[in-house]
């Protein structure tokens, strides 16, 4: 089985207060460490586990600048056989543009695959669009929020999707298909530094993204960045126990965890 996994290099912004610079034009990511998008590491891990069991190979593709080689090396260190970079210095904001680029690349280079994995979304833009849009462009069946791949059959897969409130949906999808993988589907293996060093010995092919972007244009335009309305520390609920409890229950209702 040949599994293609799209992986993205993102800034690790968990604890940071991000700084908007150039009058809203840009976000200062210069001091941030970068890593593989969380969702994508689950996707790669799942793909590797499948080929470890059922035979085949995994290829990792990344759309980004040269530094994205990091995530390709990590994918290879985890067990992917090859890595491809669709090189583009400036990030592509519109996920639709990325999907169309991927489509052109796959068609143009006659890329073989049985299944394509993506992560449900990226930690930075959280669009969650790439996988589904690409599936429609390729005319392939699609499922997102996949938390378990139950069965691999001849020409189909049975997968589980995670819905709200702990409910799980079981569906059958014919292959080839695209699946967007949800976190928690597995536990991505540890990749040691020496492992990553070894992965550097495997060639990661670089393609110029612009060659596959002729005539493509964005559907959305980013005008500027701003900060969301400020939240002050913990909003203290009224001191009176009764009132505090009632307020608490309201918050729980609003969050959808309690009816």
């Amino acid at each position, binding site marked *: 089985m040949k599994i293609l996994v799209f992986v993205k290099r993102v800034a690790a912004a968990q*604890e940071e207060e991000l700084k908007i610079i150039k009058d809203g034009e840009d976000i200062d990511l210069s001091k941030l460490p970068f890593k593989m998008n969380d969702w994508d590491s689950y996707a790669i891990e799942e793909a590797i586990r499948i080929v470890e069991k059922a035979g085949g190979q995994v290829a990792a593709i990344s759309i980004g600048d040269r530094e994205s080689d990091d995530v390709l090396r990590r994918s290879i260190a985890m067990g992917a056989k090859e890595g491809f970079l669709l090189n583009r210095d400036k990030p592509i904001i519109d996920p639709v543009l990325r999907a169309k680029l991927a489509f052109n690349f796959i068609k143009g280079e006659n890329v073989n695959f049985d299944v394509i994995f993506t992560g449900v979304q990226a930690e930075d833009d959280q669009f969650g669009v790439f996988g589904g849009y690409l599936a429609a462009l390729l005319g392939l069946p699609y499922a997102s929020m996949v938390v378990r791949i139950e069965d691999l059959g001849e020409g189909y897969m049975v997968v589980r999707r995670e819905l709200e409130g702990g409910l799980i949906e079981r569906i059958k999808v014919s292959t080839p298909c695209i699946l967007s993988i949800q976190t928690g589907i597995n536990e991505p293996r540890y990749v040691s530094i020496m*492992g990553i060093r070894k992965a550097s010995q495997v060639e990661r092919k670089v393609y110029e993204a612009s060659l596959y972007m002729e005539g493509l244009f964005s559907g959305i335009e980013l005008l500027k960045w701003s900060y969301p309305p400020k939240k002050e520390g913990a909003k203290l609920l009224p001191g009176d126990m009764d009132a505090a409890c009632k307020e608490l229950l309201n918050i729980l209702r609003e969050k959808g965890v309690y009816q």
Partner: protein
Amino acid sequence: MGPLEIKRVFSCIQCGKCTGSCPESGRTPLNVRILVRRSQLGHGIDNSHLWYCTSCGTCTLRCPRDVKPSELIFSIRGLLVESGEISLSVQKALENTFLQKNPWGRARTKRAEWVSKAGLDVKHIKEVSEKRLLLSCCVHAYDPRCSVIPVNISRILGRCGVEFGILGEEEACCGNEIRRLGERGLFEELQEENTSNFRKYGIREIIALSPHCMNAISKEYGSVDFKVYHYTEVLWMMIKEGQLRIEKEYKKRVIYHDPCFLGKQNGIFEEPRNILKSISGLELIEFSRSRENSLCCEGGGGRMFYEVGTNYERNAKIRVNEAFERKAEVIAVSCPFCLMTLEEQAVEKGIEVKDISEILMEVI
């Protein structure tokens, strides 16, 4: 195993001194002597036992045949790391250290937040003429309880006119526990990055706030052309020479706990005691196991970042109980790992755990 390791392992005469001195033996499945034996015979071992080791180093210090059993443990851990056979919490600690240069994955950009939070005027080492570097442990940098220690030392040094600087956001984990966890590659990355920074800024002297950092840089970073001190050495010198004056009394019964990485592994026993003894009103008492025999607090060897399987009475609890029996009011420490592991237990007995710098701040 490399040739050196094989040679060491086969030097073992199975005297059992290692297991006899191990703080984990008898209470956890870890049996160092048997581990070495099984390595000699090429028999399999139970990998889970390896993770009880706190890297206190006592076995290696006591071994009459230079087997260095603790190093054997780290090597085998290394094999497990390479094959990914490590617990999730160890994995996370390593991944976090790779990404943010501290095992909790806290933002590197916030490494020196203790400076601004305390309203201090501590400069980056590049802006200071005397290339004396104050080096904080990851614990000092990110734990609210321990961040008071670099603040204290900064104030003390500042008050005495001792010039120093910090690396700020460029400060990274020293890698002491990382190497002991078996991630050799990551240790080398940290070593490289830190050494490069020390060189870049022309560091002549490092005052390490944690004995672990002092140990790694002075003994495991290869040859370095600067001096590395633990802060207690520096402060004792300043007190001895009259630079640091102790003005007030500290009327408490204080018991001092020797950290493994300061005491038994690096031979610094007297300086912390001298500091305490120079404070009037302070009654200094000793644990039954002190100096070279100090009971490991079980914070080292990566134990701070993961939980071991068995439930057994922790050394920290035993230590606190003894302090209580000896009617100590304060347990004095000089290592952030000791501070955290002991304080967790001491809180229930009503005993305070204080870093030496905290005691000093109350009397100068």
